[in-house]
């Protein structure tokens, strides 16, 4: 099918884009980033915005830079750029690994990091990365900018803390030492994840000094597995500890079953993928030393 008619603007500045959101508030305006989720939805007429504000001309929204120990990525930076950027490989390899699992290359050549986070698909990879890394998301609105921690940004399926007149402009990812891993289970290569796990572990001697785990596919949005993090933190990593962490990660979750996987399947996949992610992250942490 083809999208329904809409009016369109591609302003050159963030301020003008925010102004257009307010001006067209009655037309259910949507912000167009890479369009790799929004346009299919419009083709199927599952989304019918009457006005689109395309951010492609806002040059300041694209780019990757290191600000001290924080990796700063403009919301309109394409996923394929992130995948290949040396700054990302150094400062946030977890993001690089996860981005390589977002769709296929032709999707990542258009898709953006900000578009993915603001769309907040519950099966998407990047929200889990933002959560695991304690990312800060910067939003611009009529009253200026504000910074939203990832944990507060993700509200539910396709739902974020962004107000109707706000635009996500920047993603700030703190650089983390130690090992990382992003693993997922998908029906086919390139598909959305049925279950995905982002893991970060830091070692101090033989013990885990810090662990961060985020899960996709077991709740309405990506979640932090804090109980599993508690099991790992301070522990000497062995198979029993990792298994206990995997059990803890799924102990409180109540995923909804759907046509992709039953609730029980999601729980078992989460358990096995937490184990794999933590094991891989630990190997990488040990390799660094």
């Amino acid at each position, binding site marked *: 099918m083809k999208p329904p008619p809409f009016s369109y603007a591609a302003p050159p500045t963030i301020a003008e884009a925010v102004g257009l959101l307010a001006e067209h508030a009655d037309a259910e305006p949507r912000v167009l980033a890479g369009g790799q989720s929004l346009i299919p939805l419009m*083709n*199927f007429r599952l989304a019918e915005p009457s006005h689109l504000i395309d951010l492609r001309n806002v040059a300041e929204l694209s780019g990757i830079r290191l600000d001290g120990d924080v990796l700063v990525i403009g919301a309109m930076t394409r996923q394929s750029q992130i995948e290949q950027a040396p700054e990302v490989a150094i400062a946030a390899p977890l993001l690089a690994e996860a981005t390589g699992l977002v769709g*296929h290359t032709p999707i990542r050549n*258009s898709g953006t990091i900000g578009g993915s986070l603001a769309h907040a698909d519950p099966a998407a990879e990047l929200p889990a990365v933002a959560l695991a890394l304690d990312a800060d998301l910067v939003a611009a609105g009529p009253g200026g900018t504000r910074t939203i921690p990832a944990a507060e940004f993700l509200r539910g399926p396709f739902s974020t803390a962004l107000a109707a007149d706000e635009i996500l402009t920047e993603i700030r990812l703190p650089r983390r030492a130690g090992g990382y891993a992003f693993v997922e289970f998908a029906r086919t*290569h390139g598909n959305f994840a049925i279950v995905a796990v982002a893991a970060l572990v830091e070692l101090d001697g033989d013990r885990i000094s810090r662990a961060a785990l985020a899960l996709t596919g077991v709740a309405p949005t990506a979640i932090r597995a804090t109980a599993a993090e508690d099991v790992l933190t301070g522990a000497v990593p062995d198979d029993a500890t990792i298994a206990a962490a995997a059990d803890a990660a799924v102990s409180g979750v109540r995923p909804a079953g759907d046509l992709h996987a039953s609730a029980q399947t999601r729980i078992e996949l989460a358990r096995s993928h937490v184990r794999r992610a933590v094991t891989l992250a630990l190997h990488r942490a040990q390799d660094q030393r």
Partner: protein
Amino acid sequence: MAEKHTITLTVNGRRHIAEVEPRMLLVDLLRDELSLKEVHIGCEHGVCGTCTVLRDGASIRSCITFAVQADGAEIRTVESLADGPTLHPLQDEFWAKQGLQCGYCTPGMLMRACEILAHNPDPTSAQVREGIASNLCRCTGYQYIVEAVLAAAARMRTGQNATHDVEVRS
């Protein structure tokens, strides 16, 4: 009807100025306005890959790209591959190795293969297989496509031209 927007884009080396409704998809601009009918439309939601074209050298799905988003871009479609009657090595090897049967996926496969080889002129079989995983083919089982891309890569590295000429119908 929504107001039209004027866009300028280069398609296969030729500059075009087009007046488009914002909802016009790039694939429809290419096919219906520029008569590039070898760009195929398949699933219309970014899954099958037959509408794949190159935008500034990067493969994209033209069925989930608005024409207005291509303003200022350089687009290449499968029509740009052959040099007159002389096939591009990729086209030639798809022919020789039977990398197509019905041909529906071929325009997208070829453009995706162009990008794969531009990034990596000497890929392994596994890299080609992973690279073309973005595009669906229901006929070949992919094996012959992988072989064709590898054979074309070898020829492109040594600068060997195509061995088949085709009759061009105008």
